[in-house]
């Protein structure tokens, strides 16, 4: 998520131009990519090793961005040797692309602040223009998943693990298969960090072009870049009998995101005494939220919170519910400009296909695993 120094009034009448230009500058990757970003295998290897640092070293964004990325955008146990040739092939043309499904780049503004202290620390204020980028490791990640599922299927048999569903195939973390997979997944995470960093750069370029001023004046800086759907080795307090002991565990945040509270060493200096920003995007028509990680999350959920609203209509149901309607027009009537590479993406992602995120974040806030900081209302978005 990026913040700016702009207010809603500054972009009045410009939002259509911004979304149109974002749509040109940031390819969806579904049948399109930037011709000016083509990588050799060796270069892609560097991306998998260095993550967002590769992007910054190659002119995409600023060094200061790295501090505001989970793990500074570079997981050091990533090993490109654990990534197949096929995954390399799929990754080559897709760096700097958004992808379809629920992936997007969204321009919005802060409608409401709930926690002044945290909002100030995150650099957020009422009516401020924000940008949310949601994408990941693209085809490279999907291929790594497919490759390792086949490997894990054999491993599960080897280790005598009973599988209620074959998609749940697995291996012990410390086994050779487990270690290789974690190294490959970290490489995919680094690719995702680089991907978002490149898109961040193109978002800045887009705003510079529209406002005809330097990025510094527009103040597009990173609030935080955080992963979801990832497994990480972390230290957490585990009860052993009556005592609590710091223990190394593998936390798999599937459908979840990290929400570390204050005092955690891995947080950026600026957020250390308050907790990390937790980003929960909603659907394209309603709202998104910024929350703040808590100590309670460290005690109860291994420092985790949900990463989105979750679907309420299946994709088929959404298609049925949209018959005879133009979702893009409906959004425009609400004042939200949407550009999508595919009509079916729009239909499947229509607001009523999702739970109301406002209710979801209320549950999270009341449970104490993150606390509400700010509400964001969408103005426009691009999708794959």
């Amino acid at each position, binding site marked *: 998520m990026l913040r700016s120094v702009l207010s809603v009034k500054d972009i009045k009448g410009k939002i259509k131009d911004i979304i149109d230009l974002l749509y040109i500058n940031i390819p969806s990757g*579904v*049948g*399109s990519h930037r011709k000016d970003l083509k990588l050799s295998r060796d270069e892609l290897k560097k991306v998998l090793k260095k993550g967002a640092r590769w992007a910054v070293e190659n002119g995409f964004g600023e060094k200061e961005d790295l501090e505001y990325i989970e793990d500074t955008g570079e997981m050091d146990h990533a090993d490109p040797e654990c990534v197949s040739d*096929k995954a390399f*092939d*799929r990754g*080559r*043309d*897709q760096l700097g692309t958004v*992808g*379809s*499904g629920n992936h997007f780049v969204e321009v919005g503004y802060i409608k409401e602040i709930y926690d002044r202290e945290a909002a100030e620390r995150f650099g957020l204020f009422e009516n401020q223009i924000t940008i949310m980028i949601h994408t990941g490791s693209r*085809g490279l990640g*999907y*291929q790594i*998943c*497919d490759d390792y*599922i*086949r490997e894990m*299927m054999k491993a599960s048999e080897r280790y005598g693990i009973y599988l209620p*569903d*074959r*998609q749940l*195939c697995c291996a012990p973390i410390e086994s050779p298969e487990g270690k290789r997979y974690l190294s490959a997944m970290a490489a995919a995470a680094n690719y995702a960090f680089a991907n978002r960093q490149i898109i961040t750069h193109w978002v800045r370029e887009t705003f510079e072009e529209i406002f005809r001023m330097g990025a510094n004046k527009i103040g597009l800086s990173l609030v935080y870049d955080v992963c979801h759907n990832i497994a990480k080795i972390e230290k957490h307090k585990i009860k052993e009998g009556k005592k609590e002991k710091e223990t190394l565990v593998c936390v798999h945040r599937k459908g979840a995101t990290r929400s570390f509270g204050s005092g955690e060493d891995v947080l950026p200096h600026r957020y250390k005494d308050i907790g990390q920003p937790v980003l929960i995007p909603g659907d394209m028509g309603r709202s998104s939220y910024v929350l703040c990680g808590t100590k309670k999350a460290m005690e109860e959920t291994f420092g985790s919170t949900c990463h989105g609203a979750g*679907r309420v209509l*299946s*994709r*088929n*149901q959404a298609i049925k519910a949209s018959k005879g309607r133009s979702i893009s027009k409906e959004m425009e009537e609400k004042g939200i400009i949407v550009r999508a*590479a*595919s*009509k*079916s*993406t729009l239909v*499947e992602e229509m607001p009523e296909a999702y739970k109301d995120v406002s209710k979801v974040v209320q549950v999270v806030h009341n449970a104490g695993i993150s606390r509400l900081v700010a509400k964001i209302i969408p103005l426009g978005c691009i999708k*794959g």
Partner: protein
Amino acid sequence: MKNKKVQQKKEELKFKPIEHEADVGLEVYGKTLEELFSNAAHGVFQFIVDAEKKGAEKGKKLNIEGNGELLINFLNELIYLWDTEGFIPKEFSIKIDNNRLTGTVVGCVFDPEKCTIKQEVKAVTYHKFSLKEDNGLYKAQIILDV
């Protein structure tokens, strides 16, 4: 009598979508394994792209092993060809023997002027996967990660 009617209907049907909360699913039919594989490929690609306006122009050799499940490997291979080359399969001439698929597929390459992108399919999964033969009719259930 009723069963016979249902059976007939299924024979005509190549595939149909099935409900899944977050992803999309397909039930696929075929009188032979080869026909089922071909129908499954068309079923998966109807989610990905509409290329009706383009004819077959390019052939590809296929040689796929059944390490895991042959049908899933076959469909994921096609997704890989789509993702890396924009290849859209049209007609199959394949043989399945001893858990190995060999043969050719002819198809076309994505052209934004003539084809319409529908959505990205990440992979075909093993979740709730099944492939059965019942009374000379093969039936498979596949869930796509989208």
